């Protein structure tokens, strides 16, 4: 359940931002989850609800899916990551360390593993709203 480790990171970061902005209460946190890492939204949501502290008491956590775009550095081809094309072990490896994609995924046009994960790699905090 490595979603718990990520949830902990999200809460810790959101708290740091809230403190920096001198917020008394956080009302909304938007989290983007890239498809590449295949994070289970329901586990992430549950972990966040278990880990959140007082300042997030009334906060709404929005968890949004972000498509993953890959771009080949050799031929310039751009394509979208599709989980369905992977076997279970590969999907799991990429779930833990998205960079494992360079071991298992090749450019569909030229076969190179030298591609860039343009967007949609991991989990990130998009916005945070609150009251001062």
């Amino acid at each position, binding site marked *: *359940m*490595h979603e*718990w*480790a*990520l949830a*902990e*990171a*999200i809460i*810790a*970061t*959101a708290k*740091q*931002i809230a403190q920096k902005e001198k917020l008394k209460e956080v009302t909304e946190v938007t989290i*983007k989850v890239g498809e590449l890492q295949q994070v289970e939204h329901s586990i992430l949501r549950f972990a966040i609800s278990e880990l959140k502290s007082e300042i997030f008491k009334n906060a709404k956590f929005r968890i949004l899916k972000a498509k993953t775009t890959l771009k080949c550095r050799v031929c310039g081809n751009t394509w979208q990551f599709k989980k369905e094309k992977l076997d279970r072990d590969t999907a799991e*490896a*990429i779930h*833990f*360390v*998205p*960079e*494992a994609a*360079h*071991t*298992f995924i090749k450019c569909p046009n030229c076969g190179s*593993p*030298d591609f860039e994960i343009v967007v949609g*790699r*991991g*989990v*990130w*905090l*998009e916005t945070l709203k609150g009251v001062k």
Partner: protein
Amino acid sequence: MVDPRVSVINERLSRISRIVAVSSGKGGVGKSMVATTLALTLAKKGCRVGLFDLDFTSPSTHIILGAEKIQPKEEKGIIPPTVHGLEYMSLIYFVGDQPAPLRGADVSNALIELLAVTQWGSLDFLVIDMPPGIGDAVLDLVRLVKRIEFLIVTTPSLLAFETVKKQVELLCELKMPIIGVVENMKMTKAKGIEAATEKLGLRFLGEVAFDEGVEDAIGDVEKLLATAIGKKIQLIVDSVVLAEKREPRCLVER
């Protein structure tokens, strides 16, 4: 857009007393051998030890340990399996024996990911096997972990030592503690590296002879501990690593 992973790294490492990175400006000087031997030796002394292979594109420590068919457990993060008494972490769990062609930013990302999700227990030591040089891994560790001590490996060759000098200069600039320099694969009685090390103001930890038995010890930890590397590291552990510095002995209760 904020990356949440960085904020938990120090929490993840908070129950580790000392973090030692085995490093060099050059490849092929014996970093992986020294790092693995150091970790095993500390564990034999009763310390709780983790070994983290950070040479993502050319990992070797799993071969030195003879570690096969091991996988981490998933529990609120990733729990490293125990191999010969070491909490052992490597990218090989995820990429197997296939190539992992990673550029600098990918190395950084994978490093941050593993630091953020690995649940080390309470450890006296985390030994890190570094990739060669002063690239992403060194810079990221210094940036994100901060409290690292470096143990530097060189060979008797001027070519190796010149790269070590650059690394030392960088680490001094960054105010990172350096335990000392090991001269590995020694075949003559020349004292040049020892003198040059002391000229840099660093402790010369000793020389390890080139030992033909080392190749045969790959994959067999008892044999490894009986090689010239094993014997010298044991002396260094007793006389330097455990003898001084922040904690004189293993502090964490078993």
